Structures are given as C-alpha cells and as structure tokens.
C-alpha cells in the first residue's frame, strides 16, 4: 500500500485522540484518548519501517537486509513505557477519585485562584 494511506490513517486516529482530550471531561476517557494517540504513532512507525525496508532491499539486490528492525524495536519500547505509564496514571486517577469522589477533570482547579 502507498505510504500516504498509512500516514493519513495514523493522522486521523491521532486527531481523534486530540479531540477526545479536548472534548471529554472524564479523566479515564482522556487517558484512553492518550492511548489512542500512542497507537497511531506506533502504526506510523511500523509503516515507515516497512517503507524503509522496501527502499533498502530495492537498492541492494540478493542480500539479506535488516533495515527497519530498529523502528519495530522502538515500537516495542514505546509499548513497554506505555504499560508503565498506564499503571501509574490509573493509580493517580484512583487516588483522585478517593479525594474528590469524582473523576471530572474540572474539579482539579485548585491552582486556579
């Protein structure tokens, strides 16, 4: 598939995530929108790694090429960091719920005045 299709798909998913962060007030939904954005970026990285591989294997005939492996490992590390981030973030949301009995982000305006 042409790489532009993947870029536009990932951009669309990313923008849906941005819109979710801007529109919703539920802290958990905002968090899920952030996950959506992370996944859009992962998809784009994988598509670019395969594009890179196609270019490299066209340049060098009859040879074993490993170009693009780095990008996929990068995606792997992004997933690792995302898992750690989710565990801490959800703990913070639970603590916030215990303190204010709500997960509406508009209650978190104590720094405002």
């Amino acid at each position, binding site marked *: *598939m*042409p*790489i*532009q*299709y*993947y870029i*536009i*798909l990932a*951009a*669309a*998913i*990313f*923008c*849906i995530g*941005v*819109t*979710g962060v*801007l*529109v*919703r*007030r*539920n802290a*958990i939904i905002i*968090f*899920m*929108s952030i*996950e*959506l954005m992370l996944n859009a970026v*992962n*998809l784009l990285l*994988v*598509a*670019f790694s*395969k*594009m890179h591989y*196609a270019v490299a294997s066209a340049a060098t005939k009859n040879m074993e*090429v*490993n*170009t*693009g*492996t780095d990008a*996929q*490992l990068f*995606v792997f590390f992004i*997933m690792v*960091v*995302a*898992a*750690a*981030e*989710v*565990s*801490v973030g*959800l*703990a913070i949301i*639970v*603590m916030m719920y215990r303190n204010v009995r709500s*997960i*509406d982000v*508009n209650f978190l305006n104590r720094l405002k005045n």
Partner: protein
Amino acid sequence: MTATEILFWFLSALALFSALMVLISKNPVHSVLWLIVVFFAISGHYILLNAQFLAIVNLIVYAGAIMVLFLFVIMLMNLNNASEPQRNSLIKLAGVVAGCLLLMVMVSAVRSAGEISHSQATSDGGIGLIENLGTVLFTQYVVPFEISSVLFLSAMVGAVVIGKK
C-alpha cells in the same frame, strides 16, 4: 482490488469508526470495549505489514493487560451509569474544530510532500519476525531492555505507593 487492499480498507474503516465511538459513547465501559476494537484493527494492520511480533504484543499488552486494568478501575469506581456532566457545547465545538483543523494541516502537508509520493510499505521481508527482532534486541539493545525492566519495577512500586494510603 486484491485481498490485501480490501483488508486494508476494512481495517482502516473499523479503526476510525471505533475510535470515534470511543469518544461518542456515554458509558465508559462501552468506550473501553470500542478501544479494544481499535487495538484489534491496528493489530490487523501490523499483520498486513508482516510485523507479526508487534501484532501479538499489541494484542497481549494493550487489549489484554491495559484494557483490563481500565475496566477494573471503571468498575471499582462504579461509573457504569453515565453521570458525567457535559462540557458546554461551545467548548465542545471548539474542540472538534481544533481537531479537524489539525487533521487538515497534517493531510495537506502529506499531500504536498514529494519525497514519499512514490513510496510503498511492503508486506514482504522478515524483519518483523521474532527471530530477527530478538537477535537485534539482545545484541544491540540489551542496555535499553534492562533499563526498561528497572522502569517497570519503579512503576510497580510507584503504583503501589500511590494506590495505598
């Protein structure tokens, strides 16, 4: 139209539709379920790109572990009934317009980029297979791998410390 193209368009439509449903649905549990559908669609894209290791890891880590964590938290807080107060519609409209404008900027930038206009993302080649990835991970990327285990340990300790009290 080949089978790959049909699968590509189907998975793209599924991913976009379910991503929109994540935002639209009032019930947080439904949002989580739609997000799982998004992750399955993205895993399908990985398989189409022959990145099989990442497809499986995406399913196990995201759809398996992280979403179950989300579901646990939502059900622990008993948020099943939609009690969320809405933002006023002007702010909502502004958010939607901002998102659409961002998409427009990105799409027009991609359309005018000449460098990538003839590039293809192939599905052949074995760089996404577990053998190749494992070799590179445990030779060139050993140090980041070990550091990420330390990161996990600290995240675990942090979650426990924040969560108890």
